[in-house]
């Protein structure tokens, strides 16, 4: 950390007649401003694209399955398998990039392909996912919307000839817009992109991501209305002990999420390893099985299933039926997903969560009739639970439930249940689902969860207690020369007035004393070059920038820059890294 930066901390600028907007525009570069406006356009285009996508899915569904799919209808058997064949051909011969959900593809674009996602991917994802979901495959439109948004953003960025760095950032900007439009939930979309795609809070991109998400949601609300996805009465947590009931739901949900993830992890590579000709039949075969589930009595598991989640929240199913639906949805979604059908995991995850939540709530009410939570409450909390446990996005899961219900009163149960689900899921299935999928695809994309949990080495881990006296700038050369006689150190830190640090070696002091400069103060006789300094909580990698410039770097308190907490040297830093790497390899 340079001294000029530290002085900037202390020198408060006097207010001027400049407006806030003037200061803002002055502080951001022309390119940044351009990028922010582009983000708004990305949001608008993504919003328009997602609205069309949703319409296309609904039309396909009505056309293929009829307006009111009923068990025993032959269309439930035929549509998913027949359309599955068409989707297979499109995926193999026309749009090879559109398999799967789209989240990992967007991450890959960010980390491997410099933000490049072909426009053809957006078109392919739009068509194939709509056909698959509309024909009854158990997948959702959210992750494809995310990829469509990212693809549109990438195409726009290339057309505008943005720099490689900006182009790379456009993928998450578009992804946030697509997801926000699909969920009608801007906060969740921004959080998900930060939690899962970017993996860090970056001020540089946050503004663009937020702007694109908000503008896409405005577009979607313009066309499809602003009502939340689910509407439930306000939840009154009468007794705090009721949180135990929600914690139970978190535990059950965590186990279910782990089983779901394990099923996908187990079957996906095995299906991929089958002979190539089977690839032509896998999506269709999954369609047959899912169609059979629907035909035999549970058409609710087909498609995204939002209308049935709504019904579950309105108490339209018994707890037994809810449990059956949750189990069958896991089976159906696993079949759809591992067969490589284009479509997302968000909606099925929410479906399983809603049904499981309702079922657990129903069972709990049998034993404890005084529980005040309605089925809707449990279903909503269940959604968050599966989201946290299966998709492993804990923060997004909380905000997602708040946004899709527009109900803040549910926050406590959601936090409690999600925490349990997340912890259980992590212990049963250490690798998050998206990371596992990328590894199965042979890619090594950064795992956001692993990054979050990586222990960071800090300056305080390598700093040492100073073994030499600290010299004051006002002292004379003679005084300090006498003082250092008792020390064995070769280099000494000097505290400057009013603030700042420098250093001086024993040899220099000896030389000055010998040259008759003993009466001079250190400040008048030493060169004015100041040392950089660090704080104990800074990452150790920051120290690497400075330890090569100076033999000793002071580590000072954040509250008082003249107070020395320790010193850090090149050897100490390298030693620390050596010890840590040795421990990790052991």
């Amino acid at each position: 950390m340079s001294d000029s930066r530290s002085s900037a901390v202390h020198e408060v600028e006097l207010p001027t007649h400049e407006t806030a907007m003037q200061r803002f525009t002055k502080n951001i570069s022309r390119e940044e401003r351009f990028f922010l406006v582009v983000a708004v356009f990305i949001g608008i285009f993504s919003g328009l694209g997602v609205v069309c996508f949703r319409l296309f899915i609904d039309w396909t569904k009505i056309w293929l399955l009829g307006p009111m799919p009923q068990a025993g209808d032959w269309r439930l058997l035929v549509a998913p398998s027949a359309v599955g064949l068409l989707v297979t051909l499109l995926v193999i011969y026309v749009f090879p990039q559109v398999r799967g959900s789209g989240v990992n593809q967007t991450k890959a674009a960010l980390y491997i392909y410099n933000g490049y996602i072909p426009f053809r991917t957006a078109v392919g994802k739009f068509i194939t996912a709509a056909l698959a979901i509309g024909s009854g495959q158990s997948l959702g439109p959210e992750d494809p919307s995310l990829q469509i948004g990212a693809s549109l953003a990438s195409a726009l960025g290339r057309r505008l000839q943005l720099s490689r760095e900006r182009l790379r950032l456009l993928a998450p900007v578009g992804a946030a817009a697509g997801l926000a439009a699909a969920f009608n939930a801007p906060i969740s979309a921004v959080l998900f992109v930060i939690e899962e795609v970017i993996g860090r809070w970056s001020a540089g991109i946050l503004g663009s991501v937020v702007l694109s998400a908000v503008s896409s949601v405005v577009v979607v609300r313009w066309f499809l209305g602003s009502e939340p996805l689910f509407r439930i009465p306000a939840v009154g947590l009468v007794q705090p002990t009721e949180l135990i009931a929600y914690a139970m739901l978190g535990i059950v949900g965590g186990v279910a999420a782990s089983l779901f993830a394990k099923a996908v992890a187990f079957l996906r590579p095995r299906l991929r390893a089958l002979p190539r000709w089977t690839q032509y039949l896998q999506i269709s075969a999954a369609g047959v099985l899912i169609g059979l589930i629907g035909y035999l009595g549970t058409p609710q598991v087909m498609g995204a299933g939002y209308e049935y989640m709504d019904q579950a929240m309105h108490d339209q199913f018994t707890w037994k039926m809810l449990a059956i639906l949750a189990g069958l949805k896991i089976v159906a979604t696993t079949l759809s997903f591992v067969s490589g059908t284009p479509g997302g995991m968000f909606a099925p995850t929410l479906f399983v969560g809603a049904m499981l939540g309702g079922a657990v709530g129903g069972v709990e009410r049998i034993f404890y009739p005084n529980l005040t939570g309605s089925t809707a409450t449990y279903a909503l909390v269940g959604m968050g639970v599966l989201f946290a446990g299966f998709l492993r996005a804990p923060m997004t899961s909380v905000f997602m439930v708040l946004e899709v219900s527009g109900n803040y009163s549910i926050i406590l149960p959601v936090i409690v249940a999600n925490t349990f689900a997340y912890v259980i899921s992590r212990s049963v299935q250490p690798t998050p689902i998206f990371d596992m999928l990328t590894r199965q695809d042979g890619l090594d994309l950064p795992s956001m969860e692993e990054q979050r949990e990586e222990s960071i080495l800090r300056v305080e881990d390598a700093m040492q207690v100073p073994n030499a006296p600290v010299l004051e700038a006002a002292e004379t050369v003679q005084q300090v020369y006498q003082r250092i006689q008792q020390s064995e150190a070769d280099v000494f830190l000097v505290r400057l007035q009013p603030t700042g640090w420098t250093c001086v070696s024993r040899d220099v002091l000896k030389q000055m004393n010998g040259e008759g400069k003993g009466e001079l103060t250190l400040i008048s006789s030493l060169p004015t070059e100041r040392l950089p300094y660090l704080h104990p909580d800074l990452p150790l990698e920051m120290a690497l920038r400075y330890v090569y410039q100076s033999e000793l770097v002071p580590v000072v308190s954040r509250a008082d820059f003249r107070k020395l907490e320790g010193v850090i040297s090149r050897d100490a830093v390298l030693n620390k890294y050596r010890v840590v790497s040795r421990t990790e390899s052991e």
Partner: protein
Amino acid sequence: MVFAVLSLIAVAGFAGVTRLTNRYGEQQKALARRMYARGLNDQKDGHPDRSIEDFRSALGYDRDNFQYQLSLARALRDTGRTREAEAYLVNLWERSPQDGFVNLALGRLASRQGQVEKAIQYYHNAAYGVWPSNAEVNRRNAEFELIDFLLRRGAHAQAEAELLALCATLPADADLRTHVAQLFAQLGKYERALALFDAALRLNPTLPEALAGAGNAAFQLARYRAAEKYLKHAVSANPSDAGSKDLLQTSSLILQMDPFVRHLRSSERIRRLRAAFDTAGKRLNICLTGADADSPQGSSLLSLKSNWIQMKTRLSHMTNAEGDTSDAAMDLISEIEQQVQLQCGAGGPSDRALLLLAKARQGADQ
């Protein structure tokens, strides 16, 4: 320039998507209407389960439609799926807490579930709520339902309070007044009931229900002369009204048997007293033949028989009906009829008339 082009593309996109969403919205609404109509037909044809599925599908295409949600909730409630119905109704109530339809449906649901407080609250909300049409009638019907519910629950004091509140807003309608009067009669508030029946008869003097109700109320109030008058009209207005006929017969009998009716000549008063005394004696004799003389009941009947014999002598010498003997005789008749009814069951019309006369005398004495 770049932004101008992008703006143009966005505008074109908005125009295109607007057309698409309009078409989509129309299609969704049409599908919803179709499903809803099918549901109504199924309901009419007596297929409630199918109608529920249709209403659900309609909601799938127009999920915020108030009417569809209300119809689904009603269909669910009518098929006994109260919990499922409640979920939709509560949802509707959250959206529109003043809505009369929703509150009434919730009131009915709560009354079915036996949740008294909730039912009262929702019925009240319905009675004071917002109704899109026929507000006055709907509000009154909600109040009637509440009173009916309270009467069924035995909450008579609350029901009376509601009825009194309802009276304050009753229009000049003979049927309505008759209905309210009947409810008062159900509560045993015959004075109020009679006043309301009278008010109804002033509006429609030939209304059979009001005539029968007034007759009954007057009868209960021991105003047998008035009862006879109302009941005669009631029977002539509705000859198939067996209840009124029966009451009329009893009223007439009482009036014929009552020795204390005003303006009777003394000889007639004595004749009536002796006839009543003989009727009671006969009943006592019949009851005694089947009774065990050693049982406490039998001995009390024997004691009454002994009193009856003594009184018989006194009555045979009686020349003036205004003395203490007539009161003592009437007291004995009452005592005999009550005891005999307790031990040998109800007697004939004359015995019933005597019992009512005895009650009326006791009431008058008190």
